[in-house]
């Protein structure tokens, strides 16, 4: 009997697989026909061309087919701002936005529209199928950034299904309606303080960081909260918002008004000395953008924090320093002596990002430091960032100064691999020029190892480098 049951089960599975394939083929044909006929019309309308006939043709389609036609626009393609405007107008005109709103509001009672076999009308998935339609509706409203729909999406954040919650959060993030931010903050409080287990914290954070920086003052209650976990999450959200803004505006310097004075005060006076090192670590990422006289001293304190990862975050954040007030390279230079190698490595990268002044400081440290490990790290970063190629090319063109001395040290002692690797990639002419200049130096090194740097090499002596001559410090 068992044998027969298993045999029947096997045949049943085979039948299901084949029927499913057949259904899919039919469905794919239907979608293909639809796209073949209407995609040119849709493309024309999205390009902004007026086409009353095109809209009429689309109006004649059942809503289910319209959704099928529009679905790739929401799930795959990246649309330009201009296309989004036309798409929103078109969806509103065709009644799709109203449909998606009603589905988002109605929850699981929304009317099913489409069947898997290509026939509009009945959805075979029952409740599960309706949930799928609801999920897609919420996604579409978010993609369109349809701001009037934010209250519906805030409600959907409390849906019983975690996927709907996540999608609603994403859509709210994409819309960025400032009115919805305080609702999200309240949910953040509930989740972090374990008053509620939903929505998912990761989704909540990802949504909140998508909002405009002007929403940051709404985070004040979280940043001031006695719960350190809440302060940490709020700080993480704030620094990511600032990071996004900085990526968008390369010259971003936050004046107090943009971030609001209470937030700036809180950052500089309370959060920078927070008991939680995790919170302190994230403060520097915001402070580097704050145009406030107190910022420099706060950053200085963070650079000598007792926790290595606070120092690491701070020194990394300083690579974003865009203010013309006191330059930070000397403080970052101190981090080259840090006991933790990650801090030293980041300090090297930050100094390089400071431009000529930072690089000069780095070269000076390299040429004078007895610490072999830090020197090896400097060499590694110089090679990985491609700075070695620049140094070698400049040397071959006859530049003098600290860079020339650096190349001679690297080539003769610390980084023979890197130098020879770069030489191999140089043009023959440049390579020849390099060797013409370097070989006499190398020959002299072998004969008079003590005197070489002053006699034959670059025009600067080691003593001059130690004193950091004015023309380099300028």
């Amino acid at each position, binding site marked *: 009997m*068992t*044998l027969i049951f*298993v*045999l029947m*089960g*096997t045949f049943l*599975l*085979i039948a*299901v*697989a*084949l029927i*499913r*394939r057949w259904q*899919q*083929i039919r469905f794919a044909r239907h979608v293909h026909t639809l796209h073949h006929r209407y995609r040119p019309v849709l493309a024309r309308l999205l390009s902004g061309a007026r086409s009353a006939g095109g809209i009429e043709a689309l109006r004649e389609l059942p809503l289910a087919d319209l959704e099928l036609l529009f679905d790739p626009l929401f*799930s*795959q393609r*990246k649309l330009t701002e201009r296309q989004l405007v036309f798409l929103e107008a078109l969806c509103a005109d065709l009644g799709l936005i109203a449909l998606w709103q009603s589905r988002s509001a109605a929850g699981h009672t929304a009317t099913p529209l489409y069947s898997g076999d290509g026939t509009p009308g009945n959805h075979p998935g029952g409740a*599960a199928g309706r949930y*799928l339609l609801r*999920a*897609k509706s919420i*996604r579409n409203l978010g993609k369109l950034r349809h701001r009037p729909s934010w209250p519906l999406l805030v409600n959907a954040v409390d849906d019983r299904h975690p*996927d709907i919650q*996540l*999608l609603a959060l*994403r859509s709210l993030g994409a819309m960025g309606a400032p009115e919805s931010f305080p609702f999200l903050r309240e949910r953040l409080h509930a989740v972090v303080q374990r008053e509620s287990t939903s929505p*998912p*914290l*990761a*989704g909540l*954070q*990802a949504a909140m*960081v998508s909002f405009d920086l002007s929403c940051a003052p709404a985070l004040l209650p979280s940043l001031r909260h006695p719960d350190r976990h809440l302060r940490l999450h709020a700080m993480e959200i704030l620094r*990511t918002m600032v*990071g*996004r803004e900085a990526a968008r505006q390369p010259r971003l310097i936050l004046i107090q008004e943009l971030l609001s004075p209470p937030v700036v005060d809180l950052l500089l006076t309370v959060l920078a000395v927070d008991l939680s090192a995790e919170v302190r670590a994230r403060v520097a990422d915001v402070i580097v953008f704050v145009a406030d006289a107190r910022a420099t001293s706060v950053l200085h304190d963070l650079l000598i924090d007792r926790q290595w990862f606070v120092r690491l975050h701070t020194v990394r954040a300083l690579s974003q320093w865009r203010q013309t007030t006191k330059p930070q390279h000397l403080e970052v230079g101190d981090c080259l002596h840090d006991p933790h*190698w*990650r801090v030293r490595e980041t300090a090297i990268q930050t100094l390089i990002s400071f431009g000529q002044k930072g690089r000069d400081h780095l070269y000076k440290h390299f040429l004078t430091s007895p610490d072999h*490990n830090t020197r*090896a*790290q400097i*060499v*590694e970063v110089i*090679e*990985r*960032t*491609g700075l*070695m*190629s620049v140094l070698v090319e400049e040397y071959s063109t006859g530049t003098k100064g600290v860079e020339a001395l650096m190349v001679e040290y690297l080539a003769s002692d*610390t*980084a*023979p*691999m*890197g130098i*020879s*690797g*770069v030489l*191999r*990639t140089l043009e023959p002419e440049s390579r020849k020029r390099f060797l013409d200049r370097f070989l006499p130096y190398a020959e002299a090194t072998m004969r008079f190892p003590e005197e070489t740097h002053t006699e034959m090499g670059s025009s600067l002596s080691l003593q001059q480098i130690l004193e950091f001559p004015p023309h380099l410090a300028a």
Partner: protein
Amino acid sequence: MTYLRAILYDAVIGFNLVVLSYFFLGNGIYTILMLLSLRATWMHMREMTYQGLDAMRLSPMTPPVTIIIPAWNEQDVIVNSVRSALQVDYPDLQVIAVDDGSTDMTLDRLVKSFGLVEMDGAYHPTISTGSIRTYYINPAIPNLLVVSKVRGGKPDALNAGINLCRSPYFCNLDADCLLERDALLRLMDPIVNSDRETVVSGGIVRILNGCETKNSRVTKVGLPRTWLERFQVVEYLRSFLLGRTGWHLVGGTLIVSGALAVFHRATVIEAGGFSPDTVTEDMDLIVQLHQWAADNNRRIHMSFTSDPVCWTECPSTLARLANQRRRWQLGLCQTLWKHYEILFRRKYGIVGCVSFPFHAYVEGLGAVVEFLGYFLIPLGILFGMVSPGLLLVFILLGFIYGGFLSVGAVLLEELNYRRYPRLRDLMTLLVFAVFENVGYRQLVLYFRFQGVLKFLAGSRRWEKVAHIGAIAEG
């Protein structure tokens, strides 16, 4: 004589009971896993229709990842493998290829293909490894680092990669694999969108034989030509779609393929990194992580998703298949033996009470039980202790039930992924699924039995599987 006969009788009856328990336990649990997997993969694929990957791709919260590719004598495949890793669609990606002292042209081909130059690196090992000989970079490809180290085995190469990586997560990728463009985003999805501390995320390995490739990417999916490879396609589907998905759902993940998995770097370092004690370092690390987490009261989560795909070449000859399966079985036995203290300990939860014992009995000891069964049961018939009719029914049931599970795996593939677009391929897969248990299963069983014997003999030798060049041709 009567006394001897009685002992023999008892032994054969006892063994038959062991075989019966093996049969019912193995098939019973796999049936449950199949039902769970059917639902879970169905849900997951439906989620992907509305969630997409854009949110992760664009989110500033998506953490950086480093792909580590250990390679030893992989001259035919390494370039395409590294190229496929570099082509992966991920916002912040580094690739580190670790040449583990190859004696062939592996390193030369990497250097030539990617225009690498030697550099002077600084090594800060947090896990002790063999020393690094040379570092290679190309400043024009800043996210690629190639290192050459002294031969220390795959775990040592992976540990060296972990030491070199700076990102919070790393993905290990076998040198004979091609990654799909969105595989990393899909792998990171359960990590980023989960509120649990997800430290491992595994993906699926599919068979490349029979597929067409271009520019290190699979362009057309098809079935391989030979029966041996086709049986392996079915076997992989069953193993990944049914077994691993199912175990993940019940929280009993014991194996995540080392060919494609993402790990949380700090956790792996805390757990001691990859161990050279076994020849299947991937499984060993997973069990080690479970043990470490339970011993240190850490609540960690491991995820398995079946849509991040990497393509690999499967053995096309019996000799290569034998090498591979012997090694897998040897590694399984070594890992189970190394961590035997987990067995039936409540402290280790589902892993200690269900998953580990199941793997020990059905996958480890099962190779011996099933292999000996093919000889001892006929002996029982010979001595008149077992009814031939009953035996025939039992064997038929075994074959058909095995076919039922394999067809179930093909159905899972068809319902959710449909990677084999041609109807003829689906029919072929179904036919091979039905007949997989007649002949092929016994063949693999023989190799697994040899693996157990190697374990008992104390072997630790890595049997390398040569490639036919399916990746190299791309």
